[in-house]
């Protein structure tokens, strides 16, 4: 039995090393597998495709991970936001809906964005003030948003045309689409925020041990609430890009995205040697998911199989990091 503070014994090193770097190993293995299975995989155009496909997910995954970081991976009080995907969906739908009714992009998006922010604030309130468990509270919000989204979209695709949106979707800067740049920027900003700033230190402390953070004089409630708002902001940013990409909105988007967001969020812990959710990890797991979808499409694996694989990966990721965390406790 290894001691509590993780003194390494020679026989145990290899397993721990494996787990620590399992994220990177998995990433590499998958990349190699796809490169070998399809000649198109490693082409410049395809790689850009992967980046593009990962971008939307990546942006919201970073927001979701913010909640994971300060909410803690803890079994009982674990931070989570199940409504985030539907938040993205409804903001997109709202923007498209308003655009189709003749409002300008600025107005339409402005209203939708405000709505999204309100959702984030309600979530924050529910979790922090009403002390509803994040699981149940955001689950409820998820259902609520689902209902409202149905109302707006009436299960139909909404198509809009708008030059600004087209610009966003099509334009490239030195060969890389704007969407990807935005992804990089958001990931970079949040990374700096959570690992290099004072706020980040606080958020990590709150997630690791809220009692200790409270003792240190940190306003735990405020930190927690802010993460829900950050998540909403990422949803806002992403939704504009989605609206651009789809030239409108598509019903049922939230369902699909939920799985991906959860996966990217929980998998992020695998990329950290502490097995703690983190932004860089979210960045990498978003790419991982993008690569997964892209690769399997190239070798003609049905998306339903991919869905099943994603579900299994979530379970694996959670199980692995839970065991690691227990060692840390």
């Amino acid at each position, binding site marked *: 039995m290894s001691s509590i503070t993780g003194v390494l014994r020679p026989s145990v090193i290899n397993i721990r090393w494996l787990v620590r770097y399992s994220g990177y190993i998995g990433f590499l293995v998958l990349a190699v597998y796809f490169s070998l299975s399809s000649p198109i995989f490693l082409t410049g155009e395809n790689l850009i495709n992967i980046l593009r496909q990962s971008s939307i997910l990546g942006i919201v995954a970073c927001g979701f991970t913010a909640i994971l970081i300060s909410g803690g991976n803890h*079994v009982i009080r*674990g931070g989570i936001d199940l409504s985030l995907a539907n938040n993205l969906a409804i903001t997109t739908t709202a923007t498209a809906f308003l655009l189709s009714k003749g409002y300008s992009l600025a107005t339409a998006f402005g209203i939708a964005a405000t709505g999204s922010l309100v959702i984030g604030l309600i979530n924050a309130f*529910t979790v922090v003030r*009403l*002390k*509803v*468990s994040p*699981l*149940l*509270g955001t*689950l*409820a*919000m998820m*259902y*609520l*948003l*689902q*209902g*409202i989204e*149905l*109302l707006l979209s*009436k299960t139909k695709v909404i198509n809009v045309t708008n030059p600004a949106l087209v610009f966003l979707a099509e334009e490239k800067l030195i060969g890389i689409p704007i969407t990807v740049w935005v992804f990089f920027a958001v990931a970079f900003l949040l990374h700096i925020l959570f690992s290099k700033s004072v706020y980040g230190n606080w958020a990590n402390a709150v997630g690791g041990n809220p009692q200790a953070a409270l003792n240190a004089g940190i306003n735990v409630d405020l930190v927690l609430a802010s993460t829900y708002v950050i998540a909403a902001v990422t949803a806002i940013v992403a939704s504009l890009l989605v609206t651009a990409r789809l030239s409108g909105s598509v019903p049922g988007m939230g369902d699909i995205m939920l*799985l991906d967001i*959860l996966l990217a969020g929980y998998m992020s812990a695998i990329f950290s040697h502490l097995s703690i959710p983190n932004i860089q990890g979210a960045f990498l797991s978003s790419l991982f998911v993008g690569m997964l979808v892209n690769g399997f499409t190239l070798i003609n694996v*049905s998306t*339903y*199989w*991919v*869905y*099943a694989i*994603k*579900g*299994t990966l*979530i*379970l694996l990721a*959670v*199980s692995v990091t*839970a*065991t690691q965390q*227990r060692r840390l406790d």
Partner: protein
Amino acid sequence: MLKSAAKQLFYPMASLRLGGNVVRYSTLVALLLVTVFFSIATAKFFTTANLTNILSQISLLTLVATGLCFAVASGGIDLSVAVAFDLGSMAAIMILKLGFGWYAAIAAALVTGALIGIFNSFLVLKARITMFLATLGTLFIGESIEKIVTTGGSSIYLPGMDEVFKFLGRGSLFVLQQTGGRIDLKFSVLLAIIVAGIGHFILSRTTFGRGLYALGSQQGVALLSGVPVSRYTTYALILCSSICAFAGLVSSSVLTAYVPLNGRYYLMDAIGAVFIGSTLHQKGFANIPGTLVGVLFYGIIANGLNLIGINFYWQSVARGLLIFVILALDSYRVNHVDRAHS
């Protein structure tokens, strides 16, 4: 002698004894208000025909919610009831298509449910994943299995059908044609009542039920008292999935088909119903009688809104709002009102 017998019969009901709890009262008051509202809003509501209709309409939800009760009683929540429902339905239809009889279909559905329950149990006990996330994973995996099998989500129909099987979902216990409407009490109502009744008995009167509540409430105490925590958790999960798989089977009888991803619809409402139910329990435990009230609540709202012509979309908003209020209230009660012991 008579007194003790009566007490034995009603003791489990006594748990529903209303204490001075505002939230508990408000649930029943809300139910009453809603009934009154719809009775006034439309003449079609408070007729025997319609009320019977409501009962028939809620029989599937009753089954799912009953199953879910076991999972919630164990201290967690089972989100995979949606796929237990779907896969149970799928198993039944496929067995029937292969030419076997109704008894085989039932067996197939129950076995499917049990397998899902075992899988969940493995995730929770061996992989140490919290029940919520574990069953969420199962939900995702299960739905993808459905999509794979049906290559995209198309329903599987059953042309000719076993008469008994057809009766399960579509048969009527009692039909009466009246001027006001047609009173049609479906057999599925009886099925639901029986299952709910058995479930209630198990939860409130057996050693298993008692141990389950103990471990769901404070696992440490149950563990130290010699309650077989792992075993009971597994049983609860298996029961939950199996009952929901059975519900799926009945639904495939109603629809004479297996409709993929149908289960999701029931998941949300079942959660709401179970949580409404727990507010009615003296100790705040998930329980069958309370859940039945919750199911009734949902049934009345769905039926009533339909009758007054509210479209499907507004209904979904209403249901979303409803569950939000329910969960907020329940958490509030747990964290603020019942602070007596901390």
